[in-house]
């Protein structure tokens, strides 16, 4: 009986130590940290030329925004990163981001991924991870 208990404890502990490996296939498909950085920078360049939303980024520290976006995309893609930025609700508070603004950014992101030759199914996986954040980003 005691042996059984011990076995159970050992098994449980082993279960904790051996968490299933995190699925980082999306992270790898996006070109890991370097690839994600290229995508984010491409998106920010597109935004800089996008009259629909460029004004919203005028007073923002773009360097910091880039770093936080790279972290965020990396985490969402299952990569070995830690997101150190604010929550989406905090960082967009009071900015009155409209649904149209959000879609404009999505279009600029897609264009950046197209430019990097990211296949459509990979793009869809990243967008599917980011789309649920819309509720926290836009005004209600």
């Amino acid at each position: 009986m005691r042996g059984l208990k011990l076995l159970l404890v050992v098994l449980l502990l082993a279960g904790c130590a051996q968490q299933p490996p995190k699925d980082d296939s999306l992270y790898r498909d996006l070109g890991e940290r370097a690839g994600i950085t290229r995508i984010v920078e491409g998106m920010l360049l597109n935004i800089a030329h996008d009259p629909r939303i460029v004004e919203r980024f005028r007073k923002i520290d773009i360097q910091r925004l880039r770093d936080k976006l790279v972290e965020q995309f990396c985490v969402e893609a299952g990569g070995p990163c830690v997101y150190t930025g604010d929550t989406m609700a905090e960082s967009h508070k009071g900015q009155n981001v409209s649904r149209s603004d959000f879609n404009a950014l999505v279009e600029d992101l897609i264009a950046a991924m197209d430019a990097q030759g990211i296949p459509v199914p990979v793009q869809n996986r990243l967008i599917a991870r980011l789309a649920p954040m819309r509720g926290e980003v836009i005004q209600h």
Partner: protein
Amino acid sequence: MKRLSLLLCGLACLGAQPVLADNGRLIATGGASSLEGPAGGGITPWAVLTGYGEQNEWSATAFATTVNLPDYRLDVAGVAASYDNRVEVSFARQRFDLGSLVSKLSLPEDHLGQDILGLKVRLFGDVIYDRLPQVSMGLEYKHQTNFDIPQLVGAKRDQDVEGYLTASRLFMGAAFGYNLLINGGVRYSRANELGLMGFGGDRRDTRSLLKEGSVAVLFNPRWAMGVEYRQKPDNLSFSGESDWADLFIGYFPNKHVSFVLAYAKLGEIATLDNQNGTYLSVQGSF
């Protein structure tokens, strides 16, 4: 002189804003124009609203569609407008050429015509975002404009109102990594051949609950391929009325123009069977 410069400035300012409507929604999310005018696929409406207007934005579209069948030809032209991604109004004029049937049955007219006024309201949800699918309700007022032939074969009235409820949702990456759009709805109608053959008939004069739906795969944001199905009533005893189906390809090169090419399987229409042919539609968005 001052007036001239003012005018010039006005023109220049206009020139700087070549797009009249806003385009806050993502490409292809306004769908194409369906045969009856509302935004949708080809033979069924979708829950999406025409054009690309989001919250507080206007959008307008115009379209032309031609369906070439072995014995008939259907031409449709129409316009639609939406506001706030909430409400859509549409108008479509249909002309159905009876082709060889005219001489075969020595018919008094060579075509059937119909005007359709549509209203669609998004009830809740979003086709891409949020938890719930986009669900819309629509009403269509239909007026058959030359009723002699429909009356001759037993149609009861030349105008009617019908309603439909439809849901649309994009499932990201659901088709081997590609986005999958699913639409499904029900219609409450007694329209014979969309209403081209009038409304109600000798066999049945009450509205039926009819199912319709479509599935499309988006190879990228600009290209879609899918199938549609539409159940139809069978109110007239002089001829069977088939359910409709089609296989389509949609191309959305930009937010101002789109094309749909389809193979439409329309079955039996006014006694002539195997009316299967090509469907071509073009839409402009403003």
